[in-house]
């Protein structure tokens, strides 16, 4: 599927987790010109207000020079892309920065150059990551329900006399027609008793077969 890239940030909310200083002022100024609504909280704040600010943000930029454990845990639950604002390039600080899983970085001092690029990577790499994450969950579910699909195929082979290819084809056809996943439909078929299944759940499959006969 073609992914549209985010290059316009108008109307997004940005949460700056950093002290109020010249960097912050410049950064706020640049973000507002790019259409962001900007709010700020201190990097060490950890009350429920900070939690809800993090939950509402469309983007979080955090000063990782001053990052401590409580903030790292708060940020771990965030659904928004995170940008690490970095001053010290020492490995210990960079390691701390990595713990919040940033999708891009900004270097201090903040200037016009680099902010747009950093935003571009934060938003687009984050979306790619979320998509992969979603695909992974789906794939895991699929693997988990393979046994039940196999059982449903065997059941259809026994009750309808299909071979395995045909049984699977029928399953897919019926899954598309009734708009439930193959896994879900298989679970239903398996869950029903053999006698009831003959009369009800494969009713749709019989109908399909009837329709096909009529077309012929």
């Amino acid at each position, binding site marked *: *599927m073609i992914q549209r890239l985010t*290059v*316009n940030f*108008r109307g997004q909310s940005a949460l700056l987790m950093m002290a109020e200083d010249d960097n912050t002022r410049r950064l706020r100024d640049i973000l507002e*010109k790019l259409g962001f609504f900007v709010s700020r909280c201190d990097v060490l704040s950890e009350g429920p207000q900070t939690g809800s600010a993090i939950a509402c943000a469309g983007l979080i930029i955090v000063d990782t020079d001053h990052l401590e454990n409580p903030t790292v845990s708060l940020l771990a639950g965030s659904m928004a892309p995170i940008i690490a604002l970095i001053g010290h390039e020492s490995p210990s600080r960079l390691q701390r920065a990595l713990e919040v899983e940033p999708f891009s970085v900004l270097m201090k001092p903040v200037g016009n*150059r680099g902010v*747009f690029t950093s935003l571009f990577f934060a938003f687009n790499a984050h979306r790619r990551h979320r998509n992969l994450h979603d695909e992974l969950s789906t794939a895991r579910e699929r693997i988990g329900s393979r046994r039940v699909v196999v059982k449903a195929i065997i059941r259809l082979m026994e009750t309808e006399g299909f071979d395995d290819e045909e049984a699977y084809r029928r399953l897919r056809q019926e899954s598309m027609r009734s708009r439930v996943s193959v896994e879900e439909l298989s679970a239903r078929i398996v869950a029903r008793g053999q006698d009831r299944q003959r009369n009800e759940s494969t009713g749709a499959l019989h109908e399909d077969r009837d329709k096909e006969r009529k077309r012929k």
Partner: protein
Amino acid sequence: MLNGALLAIEEINASATFPFILDCVAADPAGLNARYADLTKSMLTDGGLTHVVGCYTSSSRKEVQPYFEKYDGMLWYPSHYEGFESCENTVYTGASPNQHIIPLANFLLKHHGAIAYFIGSNYIWAWENNRIMREAVLAAGGVVLAERYAPVGETDHSSAIAQILALRPNFIFNTLIGDSAYAFFRALRAAATRAGIDQSTEIPVASCSLSEPELKEIGPEACDGHISSSVYFQSIATSANAAFIRAYLKRFPDQSVTSADAEASYVAVHLLARALRSAGRQEITAVRSALAHVTLDAPQGRVRIDSDNRHCFLTPRIGVSTRSAGFDIIFQSAQPVKPDPYLVWDEARVDRRLATPGIGSRLRVVK
């Protein structure tokens, strides 16, 4: 470009309202990016200069900007460009994308349809302009039949032209530059005529850059009927423009036309002089804070600098070229338009209702 700047320098030096004389040091990098860098460095260090007017291509601009940042100089960049930049050490006096590409997209979608063919020179300006135009075409439910790039300087476009005549797009969006573009215009017109197609009405070519001197380069056989989006055309009927044309042709008798690039560099020098006068010194911090207060009644109309991004408020226009190597202006913005180099605000202004409905509506993935 040099002519526009020289004319402005002479006007300022001849004017009693400026309490200084601009001393001009000119250097010619001959289009070589490496020379741009060397010359800039020596101008800003050994030459002791602070303000430099110049650069045409985006690649040359990117080459010199680090030096302006390092030595705290100001580049006055007099060319329309693709946007997505706001360097603290650059004043941009040419059009931003919302001042030429977006108006052109709206015009084409409204008057010619949404089936587009893109051809361009293979570099940043063409790539980014095509991205912006493609977004506009797709948003209007249209299609881009092809997006082709030729090496800078390439003059053989026969395979693209054959494809264009076979596909018959509603319009061609051209981002070829220089000789490559002139060769394309001539060959397309000749091939269309051979095929019995009235190219300028059936498959018009639209550009963000086509200017009067370029029409002369294309030649009388193929220079008419092309659509160009620009903030300046020689045919603008104002007294300021009439005075500019008179002065320009008098000063450069070997030239027969003015151009958007001549005007942009003319505007750059005039804005620089006004900023210097307002700041009272040439030091960059003072000049930068004076930018917000500078306005100019330029040949194209009122121009002022947006202190948010150091780009200019300019007046978009659409022209159609004539056989006599000029442009008939068929659209003009009612007032100067605020520059939006990152297309934060203007992207949404591409009018989605303009396009012919029903063509190329986007497919939805269902399974």
